[in-house]
């Protein structure tokens, strides 16, 4: 287990400015953690906990106010301008899959073109290589060849999410961030996508960073969990330990709130 750290986050802080009389908000407030190569780590928390903001800073969609992020041993400075070459290099380090497969695909771009575009940009493949790579990626995510010529609107939510995963994998990232990637899916489809992610991990030794509010999903996919609340990490540890013997009262509250057979909803004492 002495794998090298793939992602290092140190004292990360993100402050969103206030507007119209509202005070500024520290969405992420001193978060530090390390993800080792091949690990699957989950950031768990409710809305406003800062889990998504943390993930967006890691892939470079937000700039941190303070703190450091290194991916593959290279620090990602919060520079205002990053060269295209550098941005592409970063794209081969970390990719992200979003929650809503209905808004994350271009409605006018065929599936095959969306996937090969990524492969071509990053690896300069020729036509034949592109076709081979496309066939390989479609197969990896459980789509048929006919899907390549389809537009997103003809696909179901589960199929779209498979496409989004294929697009991310096309850049051959070492870190894949999944921001609530199965939350919008039906139960029977969710299980299929979770198994797909497990297959990909087994085959490629890819590293996962899950962002999720769903403790059952987290238990299924993550080795390690960080529980976040109001921008801070309140508890961290191996998934089984954290979910079976939570140390922090907030983790306990989260666990108690999950509906299950025999569960009765209770009103927390205000």
């Amino acid at each position, binding site marked *: 287990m002495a794998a090298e750290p793939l992602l290092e986050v140190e004292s990360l802080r993100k402050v969103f400015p206030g507007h119209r009389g509202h005070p500024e908000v520290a969405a992420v407030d001193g978060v530090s953690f390390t993800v080792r190569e091949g690990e699957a780590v989950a950031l768990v928390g*409710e*809305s406003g906990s800062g889990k998504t903001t943390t993930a967006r800073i890691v892939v470079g969609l937000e700039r941190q106010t303070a703190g450091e992020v290194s991916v593959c041993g290279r620090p990602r400075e919060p520079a205002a301008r990053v060269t295209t070459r550098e941005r592409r290099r970063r794209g081969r380090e970390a990719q992200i899959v979003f929650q809503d497969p209905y808004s994350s695909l271009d409605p006018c771009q065929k599936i095959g073109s969306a996937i090969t575009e990524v492969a071509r940009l990053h690896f300069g493949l020729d036509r034949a290589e592109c076709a081979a790579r496309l066939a390989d990626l479609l197969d990896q995510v*459980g789509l048929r060849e006919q899907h390549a010529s389809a537009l997103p609107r003809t696909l*179901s*939510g*589960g*199929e779209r999410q498979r496409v989004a995963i294929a697009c991310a994998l096309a850049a051959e990232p070492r870190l894949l961030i999944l921001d609530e990637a199965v939350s919008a899916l*039906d*139960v*029977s*489809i*969710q*299980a*299929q996508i*979770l*198994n797909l992610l*497990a297959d990909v991990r087994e085959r490629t030794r890819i590293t996962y960073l899950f962002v999720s*509010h*769903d*403790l*059952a*999903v987290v*238990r*299924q996919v993550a080795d390690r969990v960080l529980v976040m609340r109001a921008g801070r990490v309140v508890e961290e540890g191996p998934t089984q330990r954290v979910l079976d013997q939570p140390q922090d009262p907030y983790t306990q*509250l*989260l666990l*108690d*709130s*999950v*509906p*299950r*057979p*025999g*569960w*009765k*909803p*209770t*009103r*927390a004492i*205000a």
Partner: protein
Amino acid sequence: MSGLLRLEHLQVRLPIDGEPRTVVHDVSLDVSPGEAVAIVGESGSGKSTTLRAVARLLPPGSEVRGEVLFSGESVTAMGGRALRQLRTGGIGMVFQDARANMNPVRRVGDFLVEALVTNLGQSREEASRRVASLLQEVGIADPERRLRQYPHELSGGLLQRVMIAAVVAMEPRLILADEPTSALDVTTQAEVLALLDGLRRSRGMALLLVTHDLELAAAVCDRTAVMYAGSLVEEQRSALVHEAPLHPYTAGLIESSPHSAHGARRLPVIPGRPLSGLEVGVGCPFADRCAHVRAACRVATPPLHAVGAGSVACLRAEELLASGLEGVANGC
């Protein structure tokens, strides 16, 4: 026949691209006074359309066949005045997105008070007092301040509480709730459900809850009905659904939920994707995904029939129940 709500072979056709198409095929369901019943299903199963048909909230051009009876009266035949009476006193509805169902340019207080003034004929002062005490009852501290605020100033959880207060204020006999907590955080969800459950019980209101979450349904409802592709496929006591599901689809849903898998590396999976009511052909709509399918399943749509204390629409239900309904979901 003491049923409060009775659906008899409800069929709903919605206008899609100008053509009426069948979204709900066959739903028969009873809700007794004070009882909580859940309709569980995946997207496209027709669960929300069924609920909307009860309140006559379907889009123009929809066709409803079968019967919807509320305390013996046909909802489908109601005219304007009767319908207004039904919606203001008989049934109340809680939607998933409270924000989308409130006027954004009017204060929370106006929203609540206006309903009491117009529908119950109370004076403004009387209604304001009543509303403030209701807000306190739904767990909102400082109700006076909240009443002066606009919807955008309140969080989703608070707005859903306001929505529940608005519904409870009318003292309906039946609450229709369409995924009332799906957009909320788990801890807020637990509170809002506890609230809804408590208020409902103390006032003897019945509840018809639509959700995609079998666990949640089991937790707050006496009975659970499962819908698939526009038809009811199973209905029985919630306590039994997880232990002894009657339909292969229900069994598959339970098995493929990460809630039930402790430590397994792969989840059991129902192959394929859920069908919507629009895509249904001849035979059992679940046949193509079912591990127990036989030639007979594809010939005619299996009718809902009584098995044990519940009912199920599966030709092989008795046989499968005897042998234990397992291994429905398998590797993909």
